[in-house]
């Protein structure tokens, strides 16, 4: 077991190195850099750019150096906890990101938990009532959840919340709390605003989850051990929960790692439409403006969270299922 865990941790290192290269490429690829577009912008409104300041900044952040050297600088600083400087906000990245990372983690966690709470009962119902009207109806509703683009759902919900409740549902909290330190009142305000993004982001994920719970349960329910348990006279519900359900949890655990990127992808567009104070809109803006250190740090944080998630799910799987541990790799 220990060997397996050590092996998995060792494998993480090349993965992280490759991720950092990919992230650096993503932020380097678009032609030009932040300063070029900044100078252009100033020229467009008829002001002269302070060339001296820009040259200083360029030299300070090594923009005159070739790309590979800058990559090594960036990684070395990142490891030491210096995430660089956001050119657009003119602040260190760590200060800009601040609250937003935690709000993103909050929205994502709540979304994932709500997804599970809804998806598991429905999935179990669908699997035990296969091809019933309830199964078909729930599948259809779920598929519609997958099929509607998130941003349209967000727009329509915003509209109806306005008509029915008379509230504006944009943002994650009352505007007066933005940039305020955390307090009970702020927390309450956040909780009041949280449910809309959670519903919107959660729809697609819930539907996919229901389908997978159903498929996995159906696979297990025809195995012989279930027949044996039924033949012994075990209550059907107990049979279901004790054996097939536990087996079908395997896929669910192996999903923990990859659920985060997909939740965040879905959340970004929603966050733009609802103007939430999460990382999504800021990340997209930073990518579009080539505010490279800000964008790069965001991407690295997300990727590291995911890699850790995958690690945790692999170890949990290995603990649960000896077949995986002995094979020394994931079977999925």
């Amino acid at each position: 077991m220990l060997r397996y865990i050590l092996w998995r941790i060792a494998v993480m290192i090349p993965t992280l190195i490759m991720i950092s290269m990919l992230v650096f490429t993503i932020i380097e690829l678009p032609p030009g850099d932040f300063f070029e577009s900044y100078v252009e912008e100033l020229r467009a409104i008829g002001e002269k750019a302070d060339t001296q300041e820009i040259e200083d900044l360029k030299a300070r952040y090594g923009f005159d150096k070739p790309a590979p050297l800058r990559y090594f600088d960036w990684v070395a600083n990142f490891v030491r906890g210096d995430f660089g400087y956001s050119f657009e906000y003119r602040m260190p990245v760590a200060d800009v990101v601040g609250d937003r990372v935690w709000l993103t983690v909050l929205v994502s966690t709540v979304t994932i938990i709500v997804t599970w709470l809804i998806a598991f009962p429905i999935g179990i119902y669908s699997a035990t009532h296969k091809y019933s009207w309830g199964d078909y109806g729930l599948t259809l509703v779920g598929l519609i959840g997958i099929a509607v683009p998130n941003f349209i759902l967000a727009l329509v919900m915003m509209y109806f919340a306005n008509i029915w409740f008379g509230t504006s549902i944009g943002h994650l909290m009352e505007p007066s709390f933005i940039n305020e330190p955390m307090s009970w009142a702020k927390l309450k305000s956040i909780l009041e605003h949280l449910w809309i993004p959670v519903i919107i982001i959660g729809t697609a994920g819930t539907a996919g989850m229901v389908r997978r719970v159903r498929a996995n349960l159906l696979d297990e329910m025809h195995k012989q051990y279930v027949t044996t348990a039924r033949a012994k006279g075990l209550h059907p519900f107990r049979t279901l929960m004790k054996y097939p359900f536990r087996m079908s949890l395997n896929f669910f655990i192996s999903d923990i790692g990859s659920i985060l990127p997909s939740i965040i992808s879905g959340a970004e567009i929603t966050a733009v439409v609802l103007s939430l104070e999460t990382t999504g809109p800021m990340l997209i803006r930073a990518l579009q403006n080539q505010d490279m250190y800000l964008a790069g740090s965001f991407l690295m944080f997300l990727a590291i969270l995911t890699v850790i998630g995958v690690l945790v799910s692999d170890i949990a799987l290995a603990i649960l299922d000896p077949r995986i541990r002995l094979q020394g790799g994931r079977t999925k």
Partner: protein
Amino acid sequence: MSDRTPSSSTHFVSGAPFDPYLVEADNDRGGSHASQLRLTWWRFRRHKLALISAILLLAAYLAIIVIEFLAPYNVATRNVDNIYAPPQQVHLFHEGAFVGPFVYGRTMTLDMKTLRRNYTDDTADIQKLRFFCRGDGYRFWNMVEGNLHLVCPAEDGEFFLLGTDRLGRDVLSRILYGARISLTIGLLGVMTSFVLGIVIGGLAGYWGGWFDMAVQRVTEVLQSIPSIPLWLAMAAIMPADWSPLVVYLGITFILGLLDWTGLARAVRSKLLALREEDYVLAAQMMGAKSPRIIGRHLVPGFMSHLIASATLTIPGMILGETTLSFLGLGIRPPITSWGVLLTEARTVNVVALYPWLLFPVIPVIVIILAFNFMGDGLRDAADPYN
């Protein structure tokens, strides 16, 4: 063998001449001799919803060939007198008398307080729809001149079944033209990811070793970064001066390039199991090279699974295109896709004032549902012996 006479024994023996082909056809009815394709088709046919979806999709793909004929207007025809006009209702009866399909003419008044355009039906003005008629001129597939349409408004009349947008362009026609782009973008993207997935996953699963290790890490990397930043970055490298058509091809390529990981993983795990089979060993003994063994002996064995899973990824690509277009990085306006159309409905005001601009969502939902049902049916049918 053909001239058997009835024997004198007590067993009954048919007097008819013996036809060996008939016997074989009889055996075949049990399915034991049917080809894999035929078995798959038999099973697929039983899945009614999947069959209906397949027919619907076939109809949709056939329709995009002749969009110019089906759409009542051209994609860019501007009707300056009908800006933000709501959908018109088609009537059959006028004051109890049957007239045939017609719409009422409308008059527009501008509310000077709210600056909203109000359209009111003028029940005296009956505009009968024409069928197989001459309307907007177009260049069919940009080659042949034509002006024949399935349905057009009455002479000097108008017919906006789904309303018009901010430039007075007919929403129905634009949805139909958008289908041409939105439906093909998924197909081209899936082809890209299909080729990449089979080649990379196939080599990884068959060779194993360091190549497998590297491929697994790359998949892990690509899967641990949210897809939107990847799309953004790749869309941003496409030069702004590319023509919209090249941008369209570029987008399909990007969607495919980031999607092959799931397919590669499926191919790899299948190959890991299959390469231990005896027939692979036999092929190796005969001196077949790995590309031949993979392409000729291994991949056909689970091609049906691959096709089913590819069908299930097309919806994701169609949605991906709407997302990219929504962010302004996808298809650019002279070319019209459903994503481009939905971009028009990006604010709450539009939803409140001109809800008919949300109509492009309906084909998106229908097509995605159809692909999902068809993919489910294909997946169930892909394994006929199960």
